[in-house]
């Protein structure tokens, strides 16, 4: 996270129902925010003062008593009076749908009604604060991968490993082929919509041989199915991702592939993988 977001969770008015306020407080903390909970029976004045004094980025107002139409706008008015308009204010509780446009017109950025997952609240606050602070790099503008094309598994020997996949798990072996660019022999095993790709090194210089030497056999990479692979590589680079391949190289099954460096992907080796459409799909 770019900065630690500070949030004041407040209970305006006399309402004593704080289960929601407590749950949201803890969920925002678990998300990585700093949360101050006011406790019950806070006047709008106390809430606005606490928000300013604690220098919070956002306030979450919780009310289940029906007093929201009077108390929430009053908090907004007092924040304005204190020159604290930049604080993002959201609300929640038992709030009838027909009151939401009114509250939004008073500057409440969002009202979360019962049943809202806490993660939604956390993300909303985060995005609103980033937007306010001009932090934009988190905002995704590219094209997301469409599927897991395959999962690559490094093995010492295909002959030794294959019987487990075929005879024990009962999966279907689709093809075995050599991929000179990676110095590997691969076996594709179909599983549902995706595949497992068993990788056996052809030479000691093969990346797979180095992988096994360092870390032993096991899951090697995850291949993300994309289209227009060169555009995707450029987007990754623009986002500061280190690529092992700056341009696509030929992979197994006639695919074009490019690996991302694990140092930029939280230690997972990802492969971008574009397959030309098969004849059948093209129809």
């Amino acid at each position, binding site marked *: 996270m770019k900065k630690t977001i500070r949030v004041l969770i407040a209970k305006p008015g*006399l309402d004593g*129902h*704080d289960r929601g306020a407590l749950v949201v407080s803890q969920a925002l903390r678990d998300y990585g925010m700093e949360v101050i909970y006011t*406790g019950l029976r806070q006047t709008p004045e106390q809430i606005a003062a606490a928000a300013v004094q604690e220098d919070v980025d956002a306030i979450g107002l919780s009310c289940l008593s*029906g007093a929201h*139409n*009077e108390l929430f706008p009053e908090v907004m008015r007092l924040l304005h009076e204190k020159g604290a308009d930049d604080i993002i204010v959201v609300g929640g509780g038992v709030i009838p749908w*027909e009151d939401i446009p009114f509250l939004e017109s008073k500057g409440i950025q969002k009202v979360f009604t019962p049943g809202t997952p*806490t993660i939604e609240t956390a993300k909303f606050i985060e995005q609103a604060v980033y937007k306010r602070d001009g932090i934009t790099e988190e905002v995704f503008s590219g094209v997301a991968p469409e599927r897991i094309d395959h999962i690559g598994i490094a093995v010492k020997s295909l002959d030794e490993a294959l019987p487990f996949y075929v005879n024990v798990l009962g999966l279907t072996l689709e093809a075995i082929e050599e991929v000179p660019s990676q110095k590997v022999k691969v076996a594709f095993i179909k599983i549902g919509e995706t595949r497992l790709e068993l990788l056996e090194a052809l030479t000691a210089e093969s990346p797979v041989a180095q992988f096994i030497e360092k870390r032993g056999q096991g899951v090697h990479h995850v291949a993300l199915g994309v289209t227009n692979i060169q555009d995707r590589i450029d987007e990754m680079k623009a986002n500061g991702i280190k690529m092992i391949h700056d341009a696509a190289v030929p992979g197994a099954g006639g695919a074009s592939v490019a690996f991302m460096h694990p140092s930029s992907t939280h230690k997972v080796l990802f492969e971008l993988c574009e397959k030309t459409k098969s004849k059948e799909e093209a129809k």
Partner: protein
Amino acid sequence: MDKQQRIKEWQEKTAQSMNRFPERKERFHTSSDIEVERLYGTEDEHYPMESLGLPGEYPYTRGSQSTMYRARFWTMRQYAGFGSAEETNKRFRYLLDQGQTGLSVAFDLPTQIGYDSDHSMSRGEVGKVGVAIDSIEDMEALLKDIPLDKVSTSMTINAPASVLLAMYIAVAEKQGVAPEKLSGTIQNDILKEYIARGTYIFPPKPSMRLITDIFGYCQEFVPKWNTISISGYHIREAGANAAQELAFTIANGLAYVDAAIEAGLHIDDFAPRLAFFFNAHNQFFEEVAKFRAARRMWAKLMKEHYGAKNPKSWQLRFHTQTGGSTLTAQQPDNNIVRVTTQALSAVLGGTQSLHTNSRDEALALPTEDSARIALRTQQILAHETGVADTVDPLAGSYYVEHLTDELERKANEYIEKINQMGGAVAAVEQGYMQREIHHTSYETQKKIESGQEIIVGMNKFSIENEPQPELLRVDPTLGEKQKEKLQALKAKRDQNRVSAQLESLRAAAKGDDNLMPIIVECVKSYCTIGEICGVLREEFGEYTGV
């Protein structure tokens, strides 16, 4: 006593009581004309007499009366109240016309926290979650044309319970109904306010005094009144599970018993007037088991630990409300189904009275249509399903009996822990129950968000673009009208008398005389709830949370 002998005596006793309280029908039978007996299981030579007892007998696992709903259905008591006293009076009379058999008053938050409608803390709250009561004038309007000698009234009022009870007594007097004829309940359970509900005013010690003052006063003057409704409902709503609800409620109950004994009352003089209030959530069999376990636990504690002699002291009688927090804002009509199974669990658990929630309560206060469906739900269970035709029909189910035993065991573990902390008051002050509840509530939330726990229509089977239902709106000008009414009252009342009464209240609060008689005098002199609680706030201080 020999088992057969005991059953025979029970039969004789039941036959006798049926002379006074006959059953609803001469003969109960199913659609296929199978005879429905009053009680099943006792013909079994392995019938567990010690753990189940017989209906209406210690330890009351099978119910608090011998014929249960064969004689009379549970009381259908819908919690209602909003806006002005006049408006609520109209809703009450509507509900009575619709076949409801008891009243249940919801007060607005200023009333519950002892503020007048014109207090700055009352802003936005007047008349919102219940009716606004400032003085005896409002109480008169609330109860207008309702025969207080015939209707039993439950009032959800805690910290200022003495004030509202005093008003009720005074209004009845004006109607010509003597206090000893009044029946009803005040919630008066401050410990769960600290734990879960939040409408506390004073610190624990003076709060406990107000409660035991009520016990003492009612024992003498309002003997048919239930002086407290020890409530697990809100503990459950705050996120507790069934075992925690059971444990913390009983632990609170023990704290009131201890306080009353310490105040010099005798167990058999006040224990028969203690009532309980539980929640009914979705896990059907566990809820049934919870109610059965509660009766057994309380009976054992009263008889064995406190040495109560009067069987009425052993009996845990309870009101049930279906679980508000189980209702979804999404596809609100689904809530009718939730309410139905929850209500059924309360009936199979032997509740004395029941409130069924309205489908739209996750959205707003219920509309009249929704409130009617909620009442009809109970009426359907009572009149169409036959579940009330035999006593404790789930007894002897291996599963239900196991759950009953396990809940009792788990609850006793909590109670033991609380005892070691010095009892419920000490545990509340240390925030123990609050932490336990929050932990459970957060875990539940995570399970719902991960889809491990499914809420139909919310995290599964949801629909896009839901239609927006009609909602009830409280008159937005009510706060102002209530303020005007209060100003008018203050202008016309005898101010000297008001000041004098408030000063004698202050003096009494400093001492240790029973405060009830003087509070009755205060309300008769048109002192407002804010003035009375104001004096007590000055004398007792205010609780500010853990």
